[in-house]
């Protein structure tokens, strides 16, 4: 008995010594009892089901010639819904419009947050804290409150039915949060690096481009991803600003499909679902392409704040 204890004791000490030199000590894990395990998993299932069911409906309805508002396995499997949206609803055009607006917004946002975030992080501005908090205050404003003035402003400036207007508004909606995000990123990059570049003979602007921005890439990746996704998904401003058919983007096409397709007699759920499935694809692509970058970015941005 004593021998065993002694042996175990020694192993533990050796083990600890090994861990101390090779890796950080493991976190103590809270042991869950069977009841807790069951409850936690039930909770997960409820949440997952809640979010998953609409997607299941979309998938089944998109491939069903007799899709209805109820979730069901395809009654009459078909791909005609997809064919229809491109032949009858000019969805290719709508998609191209959406891609253009989202990509342009993304480029504008990345350009702006690089400079604004860097300025708030580094420059010695008077009342910088006020400016910084003002930016945050903007983020807290519900966008729907500014709907009417934005409409009026856009009309006066001739920005209705123009992508420029849509891009500016989409960028403006995303900027406050992303400026803060990027400020956090820049804060986490040591100043000595750009100072070294200045002393190596670079101007401040070139040092920003060559040294600071490459190091801020994870942050710029998140900013780009989030700006694209938000511009892609934004509905309200599109409805307010766009009413010409040839300028329609996906959310508007949806909105109109739901409103007008078949009127009272027959809502073409299959068509709407097919549009939605295609609408979701770029989101998936962006997410899977950038997920590593985003996780890394979000982690390091919180470190920097």
């Amino acid at each position, binding site marked *: 008995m004593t021998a065993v204890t002694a042996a175990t004791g020694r192993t533990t000490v050796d083990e600890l010594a090994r861990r101390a030199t090779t890796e950080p000590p493991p976190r103590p894990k809270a042991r869950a009892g069977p009841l807790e395990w069951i409850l936690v998993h039930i909770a997960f299932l409820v949440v997952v089901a809640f979010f998953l069911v609409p997607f299941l409906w979309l998938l089944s309805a998109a491939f069903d010639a007799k899709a209805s508002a109820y979730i069901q396995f395809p009654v009459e499997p078909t791909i005609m819904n997809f064919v229809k949206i491109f032949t009858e609803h000019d969805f290719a055009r709508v998609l191209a419009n959406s891609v253009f607006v989202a990509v342009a917004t993304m480029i504008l946002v990345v350009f702006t947050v690089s400079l604004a975030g860097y300025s708030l992080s580094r420059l010695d501005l008077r009342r910088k804290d006020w400016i910084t908090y003002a930016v945050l205050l903007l983020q807290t404003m519900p966008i729907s409150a500014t709907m009417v003035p934005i409409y009026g402003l856009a009309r006066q400036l001739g920005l209705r039915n123009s992508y420029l207007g849509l891009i500016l508004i989409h960028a403006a909606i995303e900027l406050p949060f992303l400026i803060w995000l990027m400020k956090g990123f820049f804060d986490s990059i040591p100043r000595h*690096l750009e100072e070294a570049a*200045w002393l*190596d003979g670079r101007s401040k602007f070139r040092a920003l481009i060559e040294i600071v921005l*490459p190091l801020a890439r994870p942050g710029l990746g998140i900013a780009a991803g989030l700006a694209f996704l938000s511009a892609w998904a934004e509905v309200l401003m599109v409805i307010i600003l766009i009413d010409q058919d040839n300028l329609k983007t996906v959310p508007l096409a949806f909105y109109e499909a739901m409103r007008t397709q078949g009127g009272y007699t027959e809502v073409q759920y299959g068509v709407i679902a097919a549009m939605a499935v295609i609408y979701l694809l770029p989101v998936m692509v962006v997410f899977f392409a950038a997920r590593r970058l985003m996780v890394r970015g979000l982690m390091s941005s919180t470190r920097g704040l």
Partner: protein
Amino acid sequence: MSNVEFDEVWKRFASQAEAAVRGLSLSIPDRELLVLLGPSGCGKTTALRMLAGLEEPDGGDIRIGGKSVVGLEPKDRDVALVFQSYALYPHLSARDNIGYPLKVRNLSRAEQQAKVERVAEMLGIGHLLPRRPAQLSGGEQQRVALARAIVREPRVFLMDEPLSNLDAKLRVHTRTELKTLQRELGTTMVFVTHDQAEAMSLAHRIAVLNKGELQQIGTPDEVYDHPANVFVAEFIGSPPMNLLEATPDGDSVVAAGGWRIPAPRGGPTGGGGTTAGDGSLTVGLRPEGIEIVADGQAAEVIAVEPFGSEVIVDVRIGEQALKIRAAPDVRPAPGSSISLRADPSAVRLFDRSSGAALR
């Protein structure tokens, strides 16, 4: 010519009540290795950063090669700075880090390559060139940072505690190398450190700073043997100079426990009138300026610290603690009594109220 001059330079940061640098005037001749030495917060790094152009002075002038550099961008000053953190560009290989200042100057690829190789060879880091900074040890990073500074052939090298992140052994080794390197390159160097041993071993001259003010500038021997004031006396030397309160009495001074110490020639007791106020003094004695003798001032041994090449004996006279440097074979027993004699040529006197040395 790349001599460096600080002329009545002031710097105040908005976040601090006291000025960081107060009326600093220094003249550094071409090819000199000057060490700015002082405790943290003494303004030495700020002075260096002003010279580099990373901070602007609030007053005074800074000149390199006789021309004022105040208001010039860092890129236009032609000085190289090695940071304490090394500040290597993490996304570039060691080769591209070292080559960066050359790329900035639009040198041809072949020229860049040749210069980088040569400097890397000189510092023995040729095999590290393809690696990123994260794949290098601290000492290797330090060499790459040094190479990046050397490759530019700047007018002045600035070093901001470049050795403080190295382990003790490598630090001592590197500082010998740096000294040799500076002599070979013949480039003016300003080196900032808080380590007095590093300063003593490297410097042609040491400028001691405290609270933003220059305390003394001189060769290592000068600041060690003739500290300008009590601060320098305590800051330089390990163990530091023993400081005892004393009062003048004829040709000598009387310190704690009635210890009568002969005062140096030309001292205040001879001429009189050089002390302030009540004439109270501080006597400074280096640990090696006190001898253990058969017949002298009695002192009680507190502890004995053997260092191999020497022994430091901690003693007490009354309430006054002293450290004495003795030969390696001297081992008095703690608690025993020994007797001491101050070497008259080693006695330094300071005005007690101002702390300034009396000559």
